[in-house]
């Protein structure tokens, strides 16, 4: 079944979103967001995969060797970097939230406070 890797990516996305919706802890929610985002890595790498091909690095390969798609690999790298920065910023926000409101449970964050 040649669609299986794409469906796995979709499943990871939905699993991450489910975690985001049901999470009672913001640190865990940030983790769920990272899971949801990692589905794009699977999707991108699956799209670029080519049977019987190797990594697109020609330092020890003949230049006509079949390689997998380097464009999506570069996109995945961008994706990983952006994902890491988003996670870092969100975790910094969670730390501030814990300090100012004394909780990391999104259910308890009801009132607006200056």
């Amino acid at each position, binding site marked *: 079944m*040649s*669609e*299986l*890797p*794409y*469906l796995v990516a*979709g499943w990871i*996305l*939905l699993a991450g*979103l*489910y975690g985001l*919706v*049901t999470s009672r802890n913001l640190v865990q929610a940030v983790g769920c967001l990272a899971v949801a985002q990692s589905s794009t890595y699977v999707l991108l790498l*699956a*799209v*670029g*995969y*080519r*049977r019987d091909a190797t*990594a*697109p*690095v*020609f*330092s020890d390969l003949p*230049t006509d060797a079949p*390689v*997998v*798609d*380097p*464009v*999506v*690999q*570069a996109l995945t*790298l*961008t994706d*990983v*970097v*952006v994902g890491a*920065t*988003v996670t*870092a*910023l969100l*975790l*910094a*926000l969670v*730390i*501030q939230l814990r*300090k100012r409101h004394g909780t990391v449970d999104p*259910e308890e964050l009801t009132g607006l406070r200056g």
Partner: protein
Amino acid sequence: MSRTTRLRLFLVAAAVLAAGLITAAGRLPGFGGLRHPYGERAVAAGLERRTANIVSSVNFDQRAFDTLGEESILFGSVLGAGMLLRLARDEHKRGAAAEPVLPTTRLFGATLLPVTVLTGGYLVAHGALSPGGGFQGGVALATALHLAYVAADYRVLKRIRPLAALDVADALAAGAFAALGLVGLAAGAGYLANTLPLGTFNQLASSGLVAVVNAAVGVEVASGVVVLLAHFLDQAVEVAPAGGAGE
């Protein structure tokens, strides 16, 4: 909204999304297929500019402008986390305490730290040749430094971590990437165009602009990640609320 309503709403939305994804998956090009028109063109363009690692060629040459944006996001996030985690008026810093460490653990750290730093440096330096590059090597370099915290304590990490210099290095390297783009303009080509001498394929001095930009990104990522982690570690180890346990 109550938890059950929210869950029901999500399940309906997830079902629709899942149906859409399944339909879309059937119409994507088959997994492992032989047709990769963009990939083939990227490989040809990369080899033409004598870059052995095509992923680096895509990142630092063919899509260099996008990577400038990506790198600015990283820089912005380091700045943002620094702002969010700065010392508030009602907080103060307490000195990190010395921790008891097993001599074997200390030996492990002292042995592996230089090896890991070397590996990170290798990954950055050979970014245009072999798997790796500025982003991957930068992260390896930054985490290598934190072996000092894992294998000893925070005081040792603070001693080997030149934070003020890394702050400046982060900004300078981020600026250097943007400035390197002007080389292309000066040569009469476009911004971030690869106009530097291309060198010999598969040698350290090859690939023109790729190797230089790759090095700038390596410095930026390594110093950025160290600064970022320093803010988080300070929160965990050093920052105490007024009247807290650190008094």
